[in-house]
């Protein structure tokens, strides 16, 4: 009852005011204080009443207002100004650029806070910056823009996922990806790894960049405590566009769309001097270039088939690899309708988007199509009641070209002898361009044939959204309930053709019959569906005391979360229809089915209190307690607190025009993280056994009997949550009214009690074991410099530079395991092995491999010389050794610049990452097949490894055993001994500088656009991935690409990755 009384009295008061005031008409002009240019679309609102106007194209307005009223002038990016009318009829206003720190930031649980009150780092990227480069996956638009955030596109292939790492890798086994929260609802952000590619199928990739108002990156643990377990790696808060008034009307229609052209950009550098062959001799069926020097003579090659044989000129085809790729044409369109009802009680936003990306590989077998429909509404049913909802539906369809060895496209292409032309091979009706009589039967085949006969398709759907009620029972209290839902499904299909050749038509196979290429064919089907529901109850109370010097803001709430997934996989082989019919019924063997289900629940209870003093000092404390189903009962709950302090010290110094704003901030926070599902017990699994090269050589049921054996992974009944503790100090400074801004942060983050499935000595009875162990520290600095060096009436130049340096160290690791280290990822083939370890005292991701040996006896005259065996080849160690290299960049940075001149905008983004190594199978392949530029060392003439010595019973003696091409030792030197580097031959420098984007945009003058009933027309041309500079000794790959996943393991490197590409685009933005 009391509430209604208050409302009633307020209403009466308002009516009285309106009745007594005399209304007058006020006109005027709103301009930019810096250059005096008019500000069209600025809001002019009568204070206390939700009535207002917007300025026209010339910044002019006209409004009826009570003579004693107050007008509020506001414009995006400018400080609002309140002016008392005092009976005046003309009021001109010049607005100043707003202090960025007055901006509102959406933080935990959808709570809005002024940035100046935050004691931690939060960086916001606005819609214009997100949509400018037209990346179908919006996370790529963050590349190079936010200090301390590393965004890596795992592949140039359409639909590939991007890895986002905030402040370094902390978790060895779990995910290091941030949590995406869209309008308060956590998003399922999954990806599928298939044939070396991590493909986005749900989550952030299903949100059209045009639907996003802003993305805010919350980096520290204190910032993320309220989001619970999944926020341990930071949070990216996505705020979508809400219904807004249009220009001079209640709605607007916006179209944004364009076309893009993709072109291959980075390929291995190849030699052009030697052609097809092995050991220096010509062999007509080899897939490498270890043959004689190219001499331009006419030569036969490939098998004799049906009395015919291929001939070609024995000379280099320098562009034979590049010639394979074509221009991929992509398009994207989005249309949105945004508006507000007449009474302004309801707003609505409806959008539709379509993107269709085609990659650089011929045909549409590397393509991605995505459609999204999105609708958001809110309705102020009563002053104390607001309901809102949103729904987002996305479908995607991905075709991809698998990586790896064998009949994959890239392997077939990169191993092509240097004298063999690719473009002639498109005719798949010729036996010479199919496995039947292809020039080499050694595991690889015509890439065009591979492309036409291999299949990898994924369909994905996601339906997510929310329903929310906000109740304001009394003025200062808001109670909300929000239901969030997210349903995802995907259908995957992989097909490999059957090859069944008889060699009857082959008259001469030169020693290796094409039928050795025979394979059984394969169909793989997987269906997955997953859902997540969230119930959030929360309450917000804010008040001010002591003359508003003391402010109080309290949030408390409960989150109930459930996540579940179901998947079923079917496989069959021995295909009846050799290719093209990818259905489980096509197998001659009965399809095997397997299923997998998971479900988890979590309840979190949280609270958050902010106390402000004189708009200068803000103290915030948070606490959360989680109960999780994935931890052992009864120790399944854990508490984590956070506290931050923000001090606007410039409030204490006299106002001046040099240092206009200064803030010091400090934060301390913890975030707990629970385990994956079903890690608390050991179980039995259906029995299967490996052969040497393949899985499943003995697979149950067998001989009519089924069998279950003890799982090779041991669960843990004593699992504890993984804890991340972070301390952060920061400084924000603004000089010359925002012309120069500095944001600096120092952080120290320690992740302890890591939950890890640890590889253990199989002698223990298990090959891996779930356990808590180890501590990893990430410590670093982030610097952000925003400047506007030039700002005149018509010209503006903005330059932002960011820099970050993260030091990553494994602080502790139990000595008993792997000698104090665990494997993050490894590669082994034949006698080669490269390991990426987390080792105590070392940075995360330290590379180990078999190393060439050197004389270590300091008294020897040969100290430091490479040791070779009696065969003249390097002696490699018998155990893997520390290479001294690791996966981490030493530092990363970015430069963003924009030039504006009379509606013309030119902007560019440079992204620099320096230091670190990665594994490259492409590099090794180039050395194996003799195509790489390095393999013409010494012109392939015999040589003795310079400075090498042999170990004899009488000590070291100078080596004089040469390496010859003719007896295969030259090839061995490159392949088995990695050009004298042993396993180091797989490692390449991961440094690069990328000019990510250049955009030229032009906004048509208003008088033109008005003539065609549009309020805004912007045209833009852009190039993405313009240029990549790599380290001098990286002749092989774009170091950003990976085929080993999108998280920590993804830092390992690549196995036959598809090459990178450059995108040229044209875009139109129309607003009605």
């Amino acid at each position, binding site marked *: 009852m009391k509430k209604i009384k208050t409302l009633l009295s307020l209403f009466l008061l308002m009516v009285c005011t309106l009745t007594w005031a005399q209304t007058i008409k006020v006109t005027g002009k709103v301009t930019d204080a810096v250059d005096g240019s008019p500000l069209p679309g600025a809001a002019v609102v009568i204070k206390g009443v939700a009535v207002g106007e917007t300025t026209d194209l010339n910044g002019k307005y006209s409004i009826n207002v009570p003579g004693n009223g107050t007008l509020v002038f506001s414009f995006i990016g400018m400080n609002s100004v309140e002016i008392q009318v005092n009976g005046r009829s003309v009021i001109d206003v010049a607005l100043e650029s707003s202090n960025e720190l007055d901006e509102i930031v959406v933080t935990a649980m959808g709570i809005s806070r002024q940035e100046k009150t935050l004691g931690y780092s939060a960086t916001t990227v606005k819609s214009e910056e997100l949509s400018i480069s037209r990346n179908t996956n919006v996370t790529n638009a963050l590349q190079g823009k936010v200090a301390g955030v590393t965004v890596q596109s795992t592949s140039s292939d359409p639909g590939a996922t991007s890895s986002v790492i905030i402040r370094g890798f902390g978790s060895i086994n779990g995910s290091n990806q941030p949590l995406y929260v869209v309008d308060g609802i956590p998003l399922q952000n999954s990806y599928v790894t298939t044939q070396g590619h991590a493909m986005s199928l749900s989550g952030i990739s299903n949100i059209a960049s045009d639907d996003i108002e802003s993305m805010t990156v919350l980096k520290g643990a204190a910032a993320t405590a309220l989001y619970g377990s999944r926020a341990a790696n930071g949070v990216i808060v996505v705020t979508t566009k809400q219904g807004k008034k249009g220009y001079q009307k209640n709605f607007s229609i916006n179209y944004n769309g364009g076309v893009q052209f993709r072109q291959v950009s980075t390929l291995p550098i190849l030699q052009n001097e030697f052609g097809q062959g*092995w050991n220096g001799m010509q*062999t007509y069926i080899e897939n490498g270039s270890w043959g004689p020097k190219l001499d331009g003579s006419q030569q036969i090659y490939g098998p004799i088939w049906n009395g015919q044989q291929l001939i070609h000129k024995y000379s280099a085809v320098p562009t034979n690899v590049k010639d394979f790729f074509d221009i991929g044409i992509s398009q994207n369109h989005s249309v949105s309708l945004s508006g507000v009802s007449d009474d302004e009680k309801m707003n609505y936003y409806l959008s539709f988007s379509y993107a269709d990306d085609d990659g650089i590989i011929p045909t549409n077998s590397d393509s991605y199509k995505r459609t999204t429909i999105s609708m958001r509404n809110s309705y102020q049913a009563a002053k104390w009641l607001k309901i809102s909802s949103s729904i987002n539906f996305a479908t995607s369809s991905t075709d991809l070209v698998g990586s790896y060895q064998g009949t994959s496209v890239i392997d077939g292409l990169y191993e092509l002898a240097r004298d063999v032309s690719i473009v002639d091979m498109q005719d798949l009706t010729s036996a010479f361009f199919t496995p039947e009589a292809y020039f080499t039967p050694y595991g690889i085949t015509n890439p065009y044939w591979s492309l036409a006969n291999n299949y990898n398709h994924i369909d994905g759907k996601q339906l997510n959204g929310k329903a929310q009620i906000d109740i304001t029972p009394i003025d200062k209290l808001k109670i909300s309930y929000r239901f969030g839902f997210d349903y995802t499904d995907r259908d995957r299909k992989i097909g490999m053709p059957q090859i069944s050749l008889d060699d009857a038509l082959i008259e001469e196979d030169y*020693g290796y*019959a094409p039928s*050795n290429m*025979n*394979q*059984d064919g394969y169909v793989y089907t997987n269906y997955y569906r997953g859902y997540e529901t969230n119930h959030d109850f929360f309450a917000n*109370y804010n008040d001010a005391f002591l003359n508003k010097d003391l402010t109080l803001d309290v949030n*408390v709430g*409960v989150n109930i979360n459930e996540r579940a997934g179901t998947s079923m996989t079917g496989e069959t082989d021995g295909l009846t229809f050799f290719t093209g019919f990818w259905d489980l019924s096509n197998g001659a*063997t009965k399809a095997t089915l397997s299923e997998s289900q998971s479900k988890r*629940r979590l309840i979190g*209870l949280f609270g958050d209190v902010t106390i402000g003093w004189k708009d200068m000092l803000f103290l915030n404390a948070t606490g959360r307690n989680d109960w999780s*189903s*994935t931890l052992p*009962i009864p120790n*399944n709950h854990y508490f984590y607190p956070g506290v931050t302090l923000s001090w606007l010290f410039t409030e204490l110094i006299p106002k001046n025009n040099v240092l206009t704003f200064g803030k010091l901030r400090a934060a301390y926070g913890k975030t707990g993280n629970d385990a994956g*599902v*079903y890690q608390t*017990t050991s*179980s*039995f699994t259906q*029995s299967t*056994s*490996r*052969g*040497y*090269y393949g899985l*499943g050589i*003995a*697979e*149950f049921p*067998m*001989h009519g*009997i089924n*069998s*279950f*054996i*003890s799982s090779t992974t*041991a669960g843990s009944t004593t699992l504890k949550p993984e804890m991340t503790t972070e301390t952060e100090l920061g400084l924000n400074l603004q000089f010359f009214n925002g012309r120069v801004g500095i944001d600096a942060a120092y952080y120290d983050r320690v992740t302890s009690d890591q939950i890890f499935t640890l590889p253990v*000595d*199989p*002698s*223990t*009875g*298990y*090959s891996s074991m779930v356990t808590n162990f180890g501590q990893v520290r990430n410590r670093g600095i982030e610097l952000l410099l925003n400047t506007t060096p030039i700002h005149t009436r018509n010209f503006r130049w903005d330059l932002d530079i960011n820099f970050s340096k993260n030091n990553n160290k494994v602080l502790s690791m*139990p*000595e008993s*395991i*792997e*000698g*104090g280290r665990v*494997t993050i990822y490894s590669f082994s083939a*034949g*006698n080669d*092995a490269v390991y990426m370890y987390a080792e105590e005292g070392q940075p995360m991701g330290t590379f180990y491999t078999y190393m060439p040996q050197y004389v270590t006896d300091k008294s020897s005259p040969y100290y430091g010389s490479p040791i070779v065996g009696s065969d003249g080849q390097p002696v490699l160690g*018998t*155990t893997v050794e520390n290479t001294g290299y690791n996966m981490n960049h030493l530092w990363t940075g970015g430069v963003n610049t924009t030039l504006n001149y009379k509606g013309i905008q030119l902007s560019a983004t440079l992204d620099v990452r320096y230091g670190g190594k990665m594994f490259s199978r492409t590099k090794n392949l180039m050395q194996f097949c003799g195509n790489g530029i390095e393999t013409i060392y010494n012109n392939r003439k015999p040589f003795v490894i310079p400075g090498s010595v042999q170990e004899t019973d009488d000590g070291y003696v100078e080596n004089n055993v040469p390496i010859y091409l003719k007896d295969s030792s030259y090839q061995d030197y490159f392949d088995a001994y990695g050009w004298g580097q042993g396993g180091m031959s797989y490692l390449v420098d991961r440094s690069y500088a990328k000019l990510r984007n250049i955009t030229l945009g032009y906004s048509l003058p208003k008088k033109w656009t008005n003539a065609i009933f549009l309020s805004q027309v912007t045209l833009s041309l852009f190039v993405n991935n313009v240029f990549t500079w790599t380290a001098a000794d990286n002749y092989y790959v774009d170091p950003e690409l990976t085929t080993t996943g999108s998280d920590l393991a993804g830092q390992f490197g690549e196995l036959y990755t598809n090459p990178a590409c450059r995108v040229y685009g044209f875009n139109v933005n129309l607003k009605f």
Partner: protein
Amino acid sequence: MKKIFILLFSACLVLTSCQEFFDINQDPNAPASENVTSDMIFPGAEMQLCATYGDFMRITGGYYAQHYAHSFGTSNYMDYSQFKMSATRSSTAYTQLTSKGLKNYEVLREKSSENGDWGTYLAATVLRAFTFQVLADCYGEIPYTEALDASNLAPKYDDGQTIYKGILAELDEALSKVTGSETVATNFLYTGKTADSWIKFANALKLKILMRMSDDSSVRSALDAVVNANNFPTADVAWADIWTDQVGQANPFYQEEFALYFGSTQINVVLNVALERTMKAADDNRLGAFFSVGSGNEYHGGVSGSNFSTSKTYQSAYWSRPVAKYNDPVYLISLSEIDFFLAEYHARFGNASSAAKYYEEAIKASFASAGVDGAEEVLAAYPWSASNYARCIGIQKWVALSGINSFEAWCEMRRIGYPAFGSLTGKDITDEGDTYTPEALPAGQLYTPIQINANLGNAKLLQRWPYPESSSSRNSNTPSYKGDGTAMFWAE
């Protein structure tokens, strides 16, 4: 505010009283452990040994024993052909035999001893002993006394003698508890049979273990006892009659090297010239049972350490490949081996006439296994010689095992010392191009491979493998490697 408190209060109530809300962490994709019986475990557990012993061990043993050489055009096993092994190469096999094989024999032993199911207990103990012996014969030292204990992540490595003595004691303990009529859990080795067959197998295994240790006089009494009891298998101990011509269901060696449906597209394994020369010299009919003809309807053996990669003449189709069928048995111990052991026992410790008899029996049993006639011709070419018993047994055992168990051949060659190396190297037989003179190699002789393993040296068999990477890289108690040429304790 009141509403919030009610809300929070009720939430707390729910959390404290309803832990069952969170009790959903039992993996729905796995059966409940308490419901899994020995019958469900045994076939899967024994197949771990079968899959590794019948495939990886056969292939590697075949190259080390010079039964096999490498085919033209591929190089997948060239290192084995050059008498090399690396820590990574054997890692998968080690992991499978330990964490999947031995672990489950242990689960079976625990379950069966709880239930007094001593037939199953013996069967699991036999497979455990067999597996430990195989591992000890590859690596010399491996974790044994501290193995299979999940609470010890760095089990110490035990020397070969400790392992051998330990498994003998385990076999004796299990044998002491069982009677022949007891039942054994469902298994593939002896479908539907009682413990009696397993007792016989256990005795054969004891014979094999004790004969390996026979230079140690302290095992003589145990050896005498098992020989005198004479309760050995009456048929080859092998997984037979369980195979189907499908992926995951057929003989593992056949799948790995011959079956398209397993993804085998490359020709790697061919006959070795050393075996070819020896068998041809005796007109040995088993050659055709063990290997198929190469070009010209003739048997051609390749040369260790080479794959003739640039030869214009000696290409893939030239060489003889092993005869392999989907339903080939995977042999654990053959009657022929038992007879060879008995022949050797009698030659060294018993009576000469028994030795000669068992030698003959051994060769006849091998012919019977191979399904061909002609033992007499071989006996004529390689007659028993009491004074030179080691050479007779060594060479004929090597030949007999060449079609069924190359791994065991490699072990016994290391112990017996026959067949022995001559002074020839592979380069005396071929230049790896178009010169190939197999006649250069005398019968019954080994030769040094081309591209010899520099850590081993000339005229020597590979004696051991580097400790497997899956153990050595994760276990801080791994000893340092003794080197490729350091003999096992039983071959010193």
